[in-house]
């Protein structure tokens, strides 16, 4: 990882505090995502992972602190302006528009852009990445399987031609086979030049593709480092790579 931490910063949270009414959810958190990185945010239920994503997208606003995208403070910008600047979401539990077709969902992804030749280029790119999505383009999104919906959700984000994709638990509710496919595709998208900020509970999978990661606990960043460092961290192994531990325990017991 580059030692000069300020070079190539794409997204930066600096001492961000986010509230819902009186409920203090994000407590003085700071994150950095550099150009070209996959950064994962790990943490248990209700610790503020989705709130982080909503703060990036601007559907909730921080009370204090700054959010900077590509050198510009964005914490007071409307969501549409952030989308225009190149941030696109893959929402928790997919959240497609269920009674619109797959194609219309992709169109909504490109909502802030003109529908010129670039739209069709991007459409072709999405269809190439997800042949299944192309097959299903005229089907209502709500009638797709969970795995197919995840493909559409990622395709919809790509249609914005984003520089940063914020993914909220892309592995949620998917079978192990699909999870692997999804993570492969995330890596492909990243290699094609899009940075990725990814919330996950599946820590072992997330750390297998991420460059760096943060660990969030009840709204506080308790740990951060490269994926390799975190994979080796004892606390992490105990707290977040529980599955490995259980498997290990089983193996020992036998």
């Amino acid at each position, binding site marked *: 990882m580059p030692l000069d931490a300020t070079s190539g910063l794409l997204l930066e949270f600096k001492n961000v505090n986010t509230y819902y009414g009186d409920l203090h959810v994000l407590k003085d958190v700071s994150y950095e995502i550099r150009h070209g990185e996959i950064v994962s945010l790990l943490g248990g239920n209700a610790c503020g992972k989705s709130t982080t994503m909503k703060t990036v997208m601007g559907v909730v606003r921080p009370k204090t602190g700054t959010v900077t995208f590509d050198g510009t403070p964005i914490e007071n910008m409307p969501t*549409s302006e952030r989308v225009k600047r190149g941030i696109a979401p893959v929402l928790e539990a997919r959240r497609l528009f269920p009674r619109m077709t797959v194609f219309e969902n992709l169109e909504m992804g490109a909502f802030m852009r003109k529908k010129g030749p670039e739209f069709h280029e991007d459409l072709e790119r999405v269809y190439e990445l997800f042949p299944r999505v192309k097959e299903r383009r005229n089907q209502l999104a709500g009638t797709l399987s969970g795995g197919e919906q995840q493909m559409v959700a990622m395709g919809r984000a790509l249609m914005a031609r984003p520089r940063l994709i914020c993914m909220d638990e892309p592995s949620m509710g998917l079978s192990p086979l699909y999870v692997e496919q999804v993570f492969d595709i995330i890596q492909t998208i990243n290699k094609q030049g899009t940075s990725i900020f990814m919330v996950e509970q599946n820590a072992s999978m997330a750390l297998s593709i991420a460059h760096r990661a943060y660990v969030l606990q009840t709204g506080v960043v308790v740990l951060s480092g490269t994926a390799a460092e975190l994979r080796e961290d004892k606390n992490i192994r105990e707290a977040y790579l529980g599955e490995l531990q259980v498997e290990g325990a089983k193996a020992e017991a036998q």
Partner: protein
Amino acid sequence: MSGLSLFVQQSINGLTLGAMYALLALGFTMVYGIMELINFAHFSVFMVGTFVALYTFEAFGIFGQSTILHGLPLIGVLLAAFIVTMVVCGGIGMSIERFFLRRLRAVKGPASMITTIGISYILSNSVLLFIGGQGFNFPNPIPPVRFHFGQAVMQVEQPLIWVVSAVLMLGLTYFVQATKLGKAMRATAQDPEAARMMGVDVDRVILTSFFLGSALAGAAAVIFGLYYEYTNFYIGFDAGLRAFTAAVLGGIGNVPGAMLGGLLIGIIETMTSQFISTNWAEVVIFSILVIVLVFRPAGLLGRVAPNKS
């Protein structure tokens, strides 16, 4: 008249009333689909529309039924009445959203709905106080042409009303299905937060749905006036309640459902009045509503809403 002629007659009348209810029901259903709000102010926007149309006709020197126009002047005056009324009603609807309901949008509970009831009464009582409580003769410059089908009679207004309603409903369907703003509207109705994260300006979408719904209420108001040649300050509640029922019957939030529900309510109303008695019309309408809802809670074309939380 023979039974068949009566049936034909009441089908003609029912389709006409139904077209009007359908236009009015669309406003309820569009706002509900996006905000899950029952907009009772819609009743009175419609009623105000009848007065806007009345004054527009009078501005062209057309009073009562004594001035009959033909050809281009007739088309021009009708077009003007529809456009002025639709724009004014659309503007009133937008103002209600922009200045009152928008401030209440983050508030949970019945505050918004009660506000719409309040606005509804303020509008109808303003008409009562400033214009008057008596019935008004509504101008109609259309020549009294009649067509005969056996013993059944069709006034020339009736096919005119069908054509205007069909054009408006097709236009709305095209807008919602095929335009960018229309798609944003559907997306917002299905998941407002996700729509916002695609870059949709949800405020603008909501304002547009109020404009369109209220403009259609304006068109329904001109139709009401031309058909009954009459208006007063409380016609909004009767017609509005039937239109609201039509929206629920078809599946509230569902655009084709509102159209279907409107036509059904119109036909049920005229058939009951003819073959049972006028006094029974409301009993039958609301009994059918209750029965449909018991067996299909989401209405004829509606889906049971998925649990959002």
